[in-house]
């Protein structure tokens, strides 16, 4: 899906927890996330802290989208 969207010239950041799969599949901008069942969360944290971490991850995703790259990059 990532590649089919990127093919049309839209920048995609693939946020996922198993980076090797993302690399093999061929995503270009890869953002490693927290864990497979909760990429943007951590049930062990208190809700406020969890949300703060989620926001930081999305900010990182936005930075990745604004970063020029010429090959696969893990952010």
């Amino acid at each position, binding site marked *: *899906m*990532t*590649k*089919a*969207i*990127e*093919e*049309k*010239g*839209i*920048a*995609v*950041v*693939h*946020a*996922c*927890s*198993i980076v*090797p*799969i*993302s690399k*093999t*599949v*061929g995503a*270009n*901008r890869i953002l490693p*996330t927290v*864990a*497979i*069942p*909760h*990429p*943007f*969360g951590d*049930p062990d944290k208190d809700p406020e802290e969890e*949300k703060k971490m*989620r*926001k930081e*991850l*999305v*900010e990182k*995703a*936005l930075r990745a*989208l*604004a*970063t*020029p*790259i*010429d*090959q*696969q990059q893990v952010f």
Partner: protein
Amino acid sequence: MAARYRAIFCLNQFFGGLGGEDKAYLAPQLLEGARGPGIFLERLVPEVEVVATLVCGDNYLAEKTELAISEILALLRPWFENEEKDRVHLLLAGPAFNAGRYGLACGAICKAVRECFAVPAVTAMYPENPAVEEYRKDVLIARAGEDVMAMEESLKNMAGLACKLLQGEELLPGRDDYIPQGRRKNYFAEKSGAVRAVDMLLKKLAGEPFSTEYVMPVFDRVAPAPAVQDMAIARLALVTSGGIVPHGNPDRIEAANASRFGAYPLQGLSAFSAETHQSAHGGYDATFANENPNRILPLDVVRELEAEGAFGSLHDTYYATVGNGTSVANAKKYGSEIAKRLLADGVQAVILTST
């Protein structure tokens, strides 16, 4: 026939019979004798005796690969360094079929065991499994079917190849059913390369079937799209393969092998909640996602960042499918259809989340 080869069999928590997604963080453990597919294998291939079964949770191995592998090697060491009569001859892992996490686990374990103990370590996967590309050069991967329906032939193929290796027989792609490892082998051919090439050309011109001697690799890569110039005015969209759908899963997106994607409105929505949305994904424990779907697709903080001006605006639809055993062809199709809708709305950037 009495068993000639003593094997360790590696399985994930499902096939090892220890639990479902709730046990996906299970640390590696070694159980006596054969379990699940190992019992079946002993019946199908009597030359092989499964002396122990190594079971490891899918998430544990995928997220903490290095730690898991060192723990696994420590568990296995006594078996492979035993006295001659008790020594284990080989390791079998899987079949992993088209399961991504399981495939990575089987590949990583086989590679480490082969390097560490110098014994054959064989797994089996469906050729589209994402772990194939990662491990095919280092690990002998027997060809397996797409899902568990193909258990019998996949087990036979995997164990058959392992037995051949133990007997010192040579394996060749084309004759043996495994994923080519990209090695070259010298041999004497009856006809020179020039003659063979012309023969091939003549067949091609005559419209007859012929097979190449050197399959060209397919590089299915896409060049990175240009970076977003000015995020403050950019239109952003959210896409997920993590199966976040409106409550009740109105499009009935399947929990595995999804045959469709859904497009769902975001207008007036400041966050997902347990009341409005849920996970339809069958490939991970959905407890945490159902409690708070923003953990899969972070709409709550995306809306905050939109209000703060961190990016221009949010496309008012999000797209979701279940990436669980989904074929590459289908994923491509969904991606292209989604891209069309994004382009029509002037979207410049996408956050695509996966579990």
